[in-house]
C-alpha cells in the first residue's frame, strides 16, 4: 500500500498541535504539582526511583489515573471527526462526567476537551487538515510521553514544570 508523504507530514503537524495543546493545558492546571490520588503518587515515585523527575512522573501518574487534557484532546478530536462541533461538545460533556467518575476535582480534562474542540474545528474548516488526522496525531503525541522512555519524558515534563512554577 503506497503511503502519500503529504499525509504523513499532515499527521505529524496534527501530532505537534495536539502535543502543545495537552501539555499547555496540563501545565496550566498544575498536574505535575502533586498526585491527585494515591495511585498517581505511586506511579510518580516509581518513575523517580527509575531515574526520572518526580514532578514529571506525577503528571504522568495523573494522566493514567483520570482523564486529563490529553484524553480530552483525543475525545474532542473523535467527536469532531464524527459530528463536527456538536460532536466535540458532546465529547467534552462525556469527559466532564468521566472526571467526576474518577473522583477528579480538577477541570484539566474538561477545559482541554473544550479548547481542543474549538481549535480542531477551526483548523479543519480553514486548512487541509482533517479531524481524523488529529486522532492519530494525539495517539502519536501521547506515545512520546507515555510510551518511549518514562525517565526522559518525566525529565522533559519536569523541566517544563520548572519554567511554569
Amino acid at each position, binding site marked *: 500500500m503506497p*503511503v502519500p508523504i503529504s*499525509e*504523513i507530514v499532515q*499527521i505529524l503537524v496534527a501530532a505537534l498541535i495536539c502535543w502543545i495543546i495537552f501539555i499547555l493545558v496540563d501545565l496550566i492546571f498544575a498536574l505535575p504539582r502533586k498526585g491527585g*490520588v*494515591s*495511585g*498517581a*503518587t*505511586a*506511579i510518580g515515585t*516509581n*518513575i523517580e526511583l*527509575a531515574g526520572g523527575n518526580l514532578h514529571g512522573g506525577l503528571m*504522568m*501518574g495523573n*494522566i*493514567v*489515573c*483520570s*482523564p486529563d487534557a*490529553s*484524553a480530552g484532546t*483525543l*475525545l474532542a478530536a*473523535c*467527536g469532531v*471527526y*464524527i*459530528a463536527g462541533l456538536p*460532536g466535540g461538545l*458532546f*465529547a467534552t460533556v*462525556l*469527559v466532564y*462526567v*468521566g472526571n467526576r*467518575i*474518577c*473522583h477528579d476535582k480538577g477541570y484539566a480534562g474538561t477545559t482541554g476537551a473544550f479548547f481542543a474542540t474549538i481549535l480542531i474545528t477551526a483548523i479543519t474548516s480553514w486548512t487541509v487538515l482533517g479531524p*481524523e*488526522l488529529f*486522532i*492519530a496525531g*494525539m*495517539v*502519536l503525541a*501521547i*506515545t512520546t510521553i*507515555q*510510551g518511549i522512555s*518514562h525517565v526522559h519524558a518525566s525529565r522533559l515534563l519536569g523541566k517544563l514544570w520548572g519554567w511554569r512554577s
Partner: protein
Amino acid sequence: MIVSLICALVAVFATLRIVFEKSTERKLVYLNLLNFAITGVIVFVVGTMVDPWLAIAAAAAYFVGATLESNAIASTLAQKEGRQ
C-alpha cells in the same frame, strides 16, 4: 486508512511494552497508551460501521472505564506498599 493503521500499530507497540516491563506501576503507564490507541480504533471502526454518535459514546465509555480501572489498580498498589 493510514490513521487507523497508526492507532493499531501504537496499540501493538504498547502491548509489547506492557509484556516486557517488570514494574507493575509502569505497566499502567503503557496500559494508558494502549487505551488511547484502542479508543482511536473504536472511533474508526464503530464510526464507519454502526451509528456515529454511538462511536463517541463507546469510545468515551471505554476510555473512562479503562482509566477508572487503572486508577483503582494504582491506588490499591499504593495502599499495599504503604502497609508493608
